[in-house]
C-alpha cells in the first residue's frame, strides 16, 4: 500500500468487515523506578479493537497513559503485559507501516521542507521521480507551496506541524499514531490543522489513533472517542460519535447533540474515578 506514492488509495485496499486494524490485547505497562522496586503503572489491562479506516481519539488528562499506549503501538516501548496486534500480527518494534506524528514537529533542521517530507521514501530508496510527485501533491494539500526550499526553523509552528503531517503521510502508512500534534498551536491554527487532517484522512482511509486532552478536538475529529481513566490508565468510556461528516466547526458549537456529548465527556472526566 503506497498512498501518496502511487494513485491507488488505501481505502480500496481495505474490505469492510475485515479484522480490526489495531488490537490492544490486555496491554499493561509499568515504568521502572529506581527509588522503589515496583515502578509506576501507566497502563493497566487495556483492551480495545480499532476498525480499519477509523479515526479514534484517545482522550484523558495528562499522565493517564495515552502517550504510553501510542508508544506501545508505535513499537517504541515493549508493554510489560499483553500485546498489540496490527492486522493480526503482533507489534515487535517500530516500522514504516505505522506512521508517527509527534507532539513536537520533530523536523530535521539540516534538511529543507521538501527534504523532510521525502525522508521516508528517501530512506527506503524509492525512485526520485515518484517521490517528488507524491511530495508535490502533499505540499499542495498542506498549503506549503513556495516553502519547499525553506529550512524548518524558518517556518511558523503551524507550518512545521504541516510538514510533519506531510512527512508521515507520504508513504501512506495504513496506521498513523498522533500524539497531541496540535497541542502547542494557537486556537485558530489548531482548527485549520484539524480540518486539514480530516480532509487528507478522508482521501486515504488510514486508521488514525489520535491522542489529545482537548474535548473539542476529539469531538471534531473522531469516529470514536476512548476516554482513559486516571493512572493506571484503563478504558473508562468508549463513545461512538453520532456527529455526521462533513463537520463544520462553526455549526458544531451550536449543535445540541455536540453540546450534550461534550457535557457527558466533561462530566466523566471530572469524576475522580471516572465511573461510567
Amino acid at each position, binding site marked *: 500500500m503506497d498512498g501518496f506514492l502511487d494513485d491507488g488509495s488505501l481505502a480500496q485496499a481495505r474490505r469492510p468487515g475485515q479484522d480490526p486494524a489495531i488490537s490492544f490485547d490486555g496491554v499493561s505497562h509499568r515504568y521502572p523506578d529506581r527509588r522503589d522496586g515496583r515502578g509506576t503503572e501507566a497502563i493497566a489491562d487495556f483492551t480495545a479493537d480499532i476498525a480499519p479506516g477509523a479515526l479514534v481519539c484517545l482522550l484523558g488528562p495528562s499522565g493517564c497513559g495515552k502517550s504510553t499506549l501510542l508508544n506501545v503501538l*508505535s*513499537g*517504541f516501548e515493549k508493554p510489560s503485559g499483553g500485546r498489540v496486534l496490527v492486522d493480526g500480527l503482533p507489534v515487535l*518494534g*517500530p*516500522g*514504516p507501516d*505505522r*506512521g*508517527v506524528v*509527534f507532539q*513536537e514537529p*520533530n523536523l*530535521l*533542521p*539540516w534538511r529543507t521542507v521538501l527534504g523532510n517530507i521525502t*525522508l*521516508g521514501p528517501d*530512506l*527506503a530508496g524509492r525512485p526520485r521521480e515518484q517521490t517528488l510527485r507524491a511530495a508535490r501533491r502533499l505540499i499542495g494539500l498542506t498549503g506549503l507551496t513556495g516553502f519547499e526550499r525553506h*529550512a*524548518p*526553523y524558518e517556518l511558523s509552528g503551524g507550518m512545521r506541524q504541516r510538514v510533519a503531517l506531510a512527512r508521515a503521510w507520504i*508513504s501512506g502508512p495504513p496506521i498513523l499514531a498522533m500524539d497531541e500534534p496540535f497541542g502547542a498551536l494557537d486556537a485558530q491554527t489548531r482548527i485549520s490543522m484539524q480540518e486539514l487532517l480530516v480532509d487528507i484522512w478522508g482521501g486515504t482511509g488510514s486508521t488514525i489513533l489520535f491522542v489529545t486532552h482537548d474535548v473539542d478536538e476529539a469531538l471534531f475529529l473522531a469516529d470514536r472517542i476512548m476516554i482513559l481513566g486516571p493512572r493506571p490508565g484503563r478504558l473508562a468510556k468508549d463513545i461512538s460519535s453520532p456527529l455526521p461528516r462533513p463537520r463544520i466547526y462553526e455549526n458544531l458549537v451550536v449543535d445540541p447533540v455536540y453540546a450534550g456529548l461534550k457535557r457527558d465527556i466533561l462530566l466523566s472526566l471530572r469524576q475522580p474515578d471516572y465511573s461510567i
Partner: protein
Amino acid sequence: MMRPGQGLGPARTAAIGLVSVAAFLLAWHLCGRLGLFSPLILPPPEEIWISALELLEGGYHNVPLWRHVLVSLARALAAFVLAVAAGLPLGLAMGLFPVLSSALEPFVQFLRPLPKIALIPLAILWLGIGEVSKIFLIFLSTLFTVVVGSAASVRGVDLSKIRLGQALGASSLQLVLHFVLPSALPGIFTSVRLAIGVGWTTLIAAEMVAAQSGMGWMVMNASSYMRTDLVMLGIILLGLAGYLLDLALVRVERLAVPWAGKE
C-alpha cells in the same frame, strides 16, 4: 540594560570591543609615560611595537618572525588534524557503543586532565627531540577533549529523532548517518573548538622540547635574556593567532551546521 537573549548587533558589538581595546592600550601607554613600572616589568606598548618592527626586519635568532609564527601554526595544525582524525571516530564509536565506552572510559578520564607538561620526559624518551614529540604533546592535549566531547554529543542526541528514524523504517546505518550524526554535529563542533583551544595552550610546553623556532620557544628564550618586550610580543602573537584560529572555526561551523542553536 541587557535583556537576556537580545544582543547589541554585530556593528555595535565590534565598535564597543574596539573602543575597550583602545582604552586599554591608552592606559597601558600612560603607565609607561608616567613611569609607573620599570620597562623590565611592563614595557609600554610602543616599545613592543618597535621590537616587533625590528624582529620583522632582522628576525629572532636568525629566524624571521613570520617563520616563528608559521612554525608554531604548522605544529599546532598538524596536531589538531591528527587529533580530530583520531578522536572523532573514537568518540563517535564510544558514543554509539556503550561497551567500548565502558572499556575506554578509565583511560580517557585518566589521561584527559593529566597536565601534558608532565609527559615531556616520556615524549622525548619515546619520540626524540624532533618535531614528532612536539606534535605528539599538542596532539594528546587536543585528542581527549575531542573524544569526550564527540562521545557526549552522540549520547545526547534527542530520543525523538531516533524514534522518528525508526518509525520511518531507517536501518541501523541510516539511523547513524541521517539522524544521529547530523544531530550531534553542532555539539561535535563545539568540542573541537574547545579542544583546539586546549591544544593551543600546550604549544609553549611543546616548544620547550629542544626547539629552535616557534612563538612558544621565542617567549621562553627571550625571558632568559630578560627581553620582556619580546616575551610580551610573543604572548600577543600567540593570543592573536589563537583568536584568529577560533574565528576561522566559527566561520566553518556556520557553514557546516547553519542550523546550530536554531531549533
